[in-house]
């Protein structure tokens, strides 16, 4: 994905702190049920996003998600997802995504390496993202694939059965304003 920061000035070499527009931003996932993709979002989360392509060491994407706020537009499915074998929200109410570092790729795009913690499991995640500045709005979009089995999402019989696909794509689309 290409990065294009048209609004950068000399003063913006430092990482800028932008205000997240939570109404327009989305954090969610794409999973598969019986071979068909279905999306889900988290309705409650908080994040801190600082990004400047020339001050990567001061940049960060830190997100805390309320796992009980999952919404896949299906009441029955959401009840199941919150249960012990899946998200186990009773015991693990929060998931976190905390940046470790940013890396610039040879093609000019960026990658973020983060520590992803969910359901008591900590895993490093590496994802590429795109960002764009339009006027006073900045938009960050990225996705990263995980195997739910490594995160203990879907235990017991679910860990062996792919009717709920093992691969899940985590997505984020963050809109920020100055």
């Amino acid at each position, binding site marked *: 994905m290409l990065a294009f920061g048209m609004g950068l000035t000399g003063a913006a070499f430092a990482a800028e702190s932008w205000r997240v527009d939570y109404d327009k931003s989305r954090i969610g996932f794409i999973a598969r*049920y*019986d*071979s*068909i*993709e*279905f999306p889900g979002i988290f309705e409650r989360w908080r994040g801190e996003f600082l990004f400047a392509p020339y001050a990567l060491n001061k940049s960060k994407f830190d997100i805390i998600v309320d796992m009980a706020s999952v919404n*896949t*537009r*299906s*009441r*029955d*499915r959401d009840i*199941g997802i919150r*249960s012990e074998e899946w998200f186990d929200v009773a015991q693990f109410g929060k998931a976190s995504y905390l940046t470790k570092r940013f890396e610039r790729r040879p093609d000019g795009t960026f990658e973020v390496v983060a520590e992803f913690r969910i359901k008591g499991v900590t895993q490093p995640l590496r994802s590429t993202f795109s960002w764009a500045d339009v006027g006073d709005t900045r938009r960050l979009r990225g996705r990263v694939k995980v195997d739910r089995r490594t995160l203990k999402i879907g235990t*017991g*019989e*679910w860990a*062996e*059965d792919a*009717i*709920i696909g093992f691969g899940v794509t985590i997505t984020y689309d963050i809109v920020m304003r100055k």
Partner: protein
Amino acid sequence: MSGIANRVKDVMKFRSTSSRWGPIAVALHWVMALAIIAMLVLGVVMVNYPMSATKLKLFAVHKSIGLTVLALAWVRLAWRCFDRRPRWPEGLSGAHKHAARSAHIGLYILMLLVPLSGWCINAASGFPLNWFGLFAVPSLLSPNETLQAIAESVHLTAVIALTVVLSLHVTGALYHHFARRSGLLRRMWLW
């Protein structure tokens, strides 16, 4: 033109006669009978099964067979419009003819209503749908809890009605064939 005429002649061979149902009507009847009985049993088993991957698979099979029954019901209706009806067996009373005709009409309505309402439940509950994992089937509705509840009520009521009408249909057929010795089943038998 002669090609079309020959095709029509070929199809006419499959029509029912005055004494028995034709091969297409017979095939549709027994395939759907088996499918419907399997669906009734599967439906009871799957709703009572503990939440698990196996339960989801039972639902997936139930939904796929349900869609098949719905498609075959339309085929059957279309064929019924084209086909002729065998004569009623000798000695069948007017009341019994009326009862049989009513049961048949009821079964046709329920063969459409049961799978359609099931399809609505699936859509309104926000679940995807495919046919035996081969292709996705479009949703009839957007996810909606109120419509889901309505569709579930309709589906359950229609299933109970189907079970009752089917029982009457089977009982009537067996009674007339064995107790009244009318040979009724031979009209719909496989050979």
